[in-house]
């Protein structure tokens, strides 16, 4: 199925209406279909409005939820319609003390198989599902473009990346759209690192600072890539790190609010050394060996 079914949407509406009717939430952040079928984010306040709640298109809302909660009274309870990636993003934001999970009511929506394929999503469903059925995930190396960027001769790959990143118009869209990119001040605005006043943004400095800052936090929502006006596959910068954390530490950002990033933990929990890295990671060692 291409998009979320009507049935799944109705299931989401039922949950949203229930939360408002039982006064279990002060508002529901979701998409609303307005005049002439135009869709935009909206905070639903009344159960009677819920008939306008829709679940398409994919529209990551975790960062917006965070902004709303941060400017609301401490006892404000916001329900959010979350796909898998939104769910994981809010978990990561809670770990970073940007939101408190107690203030959030999660209305879980599972993506369709087709959507999971388009997003190269390994886990296209939230922890708790209110609408839809969980579909199998997709591994990013199944995508030819991504595998061509992550596999093969390092010099060729470097040239390929350089050519792609030379398009960057420095809109900051990847940073602004990312639900986890919330540092204040942002390193990309630090004069020491990123040259101001010219495009393209430097490949190694701008894009790799961003990628590394998110290496143990990226929930693979793809918002960065979808926001890029010049078709840079920004997500592919994150896949390698995500995979390394998963393979080496069994860690996936956003699944477990209680589990801290391995990058932040001490060496006592370090698994035995000598584990093999995936073939597509450049040789040259990581310092762990």
């Amino acid at each position, binding site marked *: 199925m291409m998009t979320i079914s009507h049935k799944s949407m109705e299931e989401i509406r039922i949950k949203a209406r229930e939360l408002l009717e039982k006064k279990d939430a002060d*508002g529901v952040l979701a998409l609303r279909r*307005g*005049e*002439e*079928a*135009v*869709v*935009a*984010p*909206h*905070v639903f*306040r009344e159960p009677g409005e819920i008939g306008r709640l829709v679940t398409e*298109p994919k*529209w990551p809302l975790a960062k*917006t939820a965070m*902004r*709303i909660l941060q*400017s*609301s*009274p401490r006892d404000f309870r916001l329900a959010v319609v979350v796909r898998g990636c939104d769910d994981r993003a809010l978990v990561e934001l809670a770990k970073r003390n940007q939101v408190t999970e107690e203030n959030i009511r999660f209305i879980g929506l599972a993506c369709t198989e087709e959507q999971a394929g388009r997003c190269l999503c390994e886990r296209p469903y939230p922890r708790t599902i209110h609408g839809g059925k969980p579909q199998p995930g997709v591994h990013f190396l199944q995508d030819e473009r991504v595998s061509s960027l992550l596999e093969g001769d390092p010099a060729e790959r470097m040239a390929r990346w350089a*050519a792609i990143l*030379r*398009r960057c*118009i*420095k*809109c*900051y*869209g990847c940073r*602004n*759209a990312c639900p986890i990119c919330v540092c204040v001040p942002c390193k990309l*605005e630090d004069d020491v690192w990123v040259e*101001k*006043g*010219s*495009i*393209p943004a430097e490949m190694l400095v701008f894009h790799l600072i961003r990628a590394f800052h998110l290496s143990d936090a990226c929930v693979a929502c793809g918002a960065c890539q*979808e*926001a*890029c*006006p*010049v*078709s840079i596959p920004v997500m592919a910068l994150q896949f390698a790190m995500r995979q390394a954390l998963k393979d080496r530490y069994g860690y996936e950002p956003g699944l477990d609010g209680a589990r801290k990033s391995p990058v932040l933990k001490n060496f006592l929990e370090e698994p035995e050394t000598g584990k093999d890295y995936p073939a597509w990671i450049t040789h040259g060692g990581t310092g762990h060996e």
Partner: protein
Amino acid sequence: MNDSFVRTICPYCGTGCGLILRVRDGAAVECLPDRDHPVSRGHLCIKGWYAHEFIHHPERLTTPLVREGERFRPVSWKEAIALAAERLRGTAEKYGGNAVGGLSSAKCTNEENYLFQKLIRAAFGTNNVDHCARLCHAPTTVAMARSLGSGAMTNSIEHLARAGCIVMIGSNAAESHPIIMGEIYRAVDGGATLIVVDPRKTAAAENARIHLAIRPGTDIPLVCGMMRHIIDSGLHNGSFIGERMEGFEDLRAFLSDWTVERAARESGISEAALREAAETFARAREGAVVYCMGITQHACGTANVFALCDLAMLCGHVGREGSGIYPLRGQNNVQGACDMGALPNVYPGYQAVGDPAVRDKFRKAWGRDLSDRPGLTVTEMIGAAGEDIRALYIMAENPALSDPDVNHVLERLPALDFLVVQDIFLTETARLAHLVLPGACYAEKTGTFTNTERRFQLLRKAVDPPGDAEDDFSILCRLGGALGLDFPYRNPGEVMEEIAALAPAYGGIRHGRLEKAGIQWPCPNTEHPGTAFLHKDRFTRGKGLFVSPDHVPPRESPDGDYPFWLSTGRMFAHYHTGTMTRRSAFLNREQEEPYVEIHPEDARKLTLEDGDPIRITSRRGSIVTTARVTGRVARGSLFAPFHFTEARANRLTNPVLDPLSKIPEFKACAARVEKIRA
């Protein structure tokens, strides 16, 4: 306490991207990309992402101001409107209606532009109304109207992605129209060849398969050489020319002077590169020509556009989805301001003021006698300030920064008997006014903007204007009423109905139809879905016309005293005169100070290092700025962004005009560079 999300349109360039303003407690606090928008589809450039930052800036004008000596005194709206009406009417009574002029605004809505030109024409019986399109795409409207019958972009932005070859000439879209650049890259990803013609090594040029770094002002030699080679190689589209074109034999004869050898020599391009570019474009199944100020801002700007139209039509690259001619309009509503007749020679819908039947229609509709004489252009009105023009009404334009040779502008404007400026900030121009009226910015009003692909789009009010400031529609209605005009409109939607009744191309436009995706004109009736691309089976003028482009080199070229070429333009983080972007913290942080680009070898000769203070001087004036040493510019060339009031690039530019369109030659003059020693 609640958050609302208001879908509206970006106030910067002519792409017309969709943005969503998040509003909290009456303040716009964030911009988000609109994923449901037909043009931008969830994308924004740096300016769009930060388009909320200037809205609540503390320097916003909040009350009308009247000049008293060197100072301004706040006054009530009643007093302000009475003063404006009395002084404008008094000027017309004393010197005649042609002593009054108005500069309308490409930043304001269609409805406001319509009311503005109606006010000037109906109240004073003059056609002295113009706006900054004169400084950007006047040659486009003149040349494309003659060659094709319509002076607008032929296709839709999304069609670019379907082209097989794109010639981008005199456009720095990666910085000035970034979302359109994204569409061009989509075409490249689909296998299209990108050819960039630009004296500078722009970001787009770096990403192009072929970059032709021509000498400044040699567009016509290059394009003529390409056309000559296409014809000589038999690559022109004979059946298209036979069925749909006229003037081919004249063009062929004209091109006999333009051998590839001569074209290559004059433009500074190798013959092989010129031939390759010509063949690639001609052989492409679908070809698009994208151009901007590098083509138009020349004393031969109109001829430059003729040359590009000729090239596209010679190959049959017009009238299909993947092919077309794409002038990229610079301002959010510069297309609309032209469409609404904020031009001295036409009423709304490009209906000539000299046509008696047209004039009679507008006379009946507006109930006033109208002039049959075309009015003065922007540069002519300012040049005549204090002489033929005694009173000027400027709505949201800033000629003290944007016009060529601004030293001259700064001399002329104070010579006016009365200058009224309506704006959102006290701009360099507003500082010279006798009366300042505080208007509303894009987030504070409703109405429509028309983007570069002719798409009427709804602007939606998100927040209130600050203090006593009012939306420009209301100000115009008040002033029109005070001047004795019947301006009975309750809202901008009613103005649109009047526009639709008078201009056939917009006959089907109603606010109620624009909610989802807007409508592209022509749209003659309310059943019509709009027009995604023009000239499908026949050109608007019937047959397409080849017009031979006469080459006129830049009027000023480097010499012993002024050894550099100087060109001006935009950089990615700022917009035009900086009124909005320099008051946006994030954008200003990206580029806080003026600079001028200079090639490393030239810098070495002048013992300049990056960041050194320099003085740039032309025959008009001089500015103090800093050197940016970069290989983006060619040896012997300088590039100056024009956003910076403390180093106005337009103190240097040459005010010579293209005879047909009256556009000034911003893109080429001679200058010298001096290092300033500490």
